[in-house]
């Protein structure tokens, strides 16, 4: 395959930043959902503890109802815990992808700066960080 004359399109930087940001946003959303699940699990755990405490001081049908409630709430705690684990794995995988997307963006940004391409104004802040990082005496 003969390579056509390569020209670079600085707007690709925006596309790469968008991909990275979308992954980060998804991680944030999942993080919030994880937090909500944690609260729901704590709530279910409280209910299970309360029902268990009730079961110890009641007799007959009331105790049976309290036992049932304990089992139900405990099952809910386990179910939420399992979902939290799944979510955590999802977050970990996405964090790795976001890291890779961030790496792609940084490599491209550094290359664009090196080539003297016009960096889109929306990325000026990130380009300035890059300048500071690579400026002589920055370290």
């Amino acid at each position, binding site marked *: 395959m003969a*390579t056509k004359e390569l020209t670079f*399109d600085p707007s*690709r930087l925006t596309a*790469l930043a968008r991909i990275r940001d979308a992954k980060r946003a998804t991680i944030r959303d999942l993080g919030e959902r994880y937090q909500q699940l944690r609260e729901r699990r704590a709530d279910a755990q409280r209910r299970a503890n309360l029902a268990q405490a009730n079961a110890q001081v009641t007799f007959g049908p009331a105790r049976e109802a309290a036992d049932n409630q304990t089992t139900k709430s405990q099952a809910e705690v386990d179910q939420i815990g399992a979902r939290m684990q799944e979510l955590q794995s999802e977050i970990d995988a996405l964090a790795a*992808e976001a890291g*890779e*997307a961030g790496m*792609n963006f940084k*490599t491209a940004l550094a290359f664009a700066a090196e080539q003297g391409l016009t960096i889109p104004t929306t990325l000026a802040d990130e380009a300035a960080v890059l300048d500071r990082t690579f400026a002589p005496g920055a370290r």
Partner: protein
Amino acid sequence: MTLLNKLTASRSAVTSAFDVLDQLREATASAKAEVSSVQSAPPPVDEIMTGLDIWLDRIATDGFDALRPGRLLAQGGATQGLDLPIFLERHDGFAVRDTSRAVEVLLGLVVALNRETFRTIIRGQIEDLVAGRETLSAASRSKRLAQAMQRVLEAELLEEAAIRQLENASLDVARRPDADPRALLAADNCLPS
């Protein structure tokens, strides 16, 4: 076509698109492996021997120079003979003989006196080591390297083209973290179609 068939067809289209991407990535990896193999290919035996000869000349000359034969010119100097450079390193309460320089000088003298034997043995060892391996002279290495790197770039551009097509079809594709920035920033019309 039923909805289920459509769904199956679109799922298989997605799967085969990702299969194609995997193949492209394998092609990139293999092009990169070619670069590594060109970089690590040993030079031809004659080129190695030319380099070795420069070193042999240096240590042989250095070996005789280190004996300082000029001392023999002094009155009675010849009877005192020549010394290997052995240094005495003094420490608190003891001294150590530093013979490292003397060993280098001795190697130079051994090489100078048995140069051809030394060369023949080393050459034989080098020939055994490079047997069955491709050797590259400096000129052909640089040519082959340029070709191999061009193939890597072409493979990376193909990969990027496939990723952009998948992205245009709203599919989420992760790029390799070590993707070439030239491919990442290449204008759409420069990518292979």
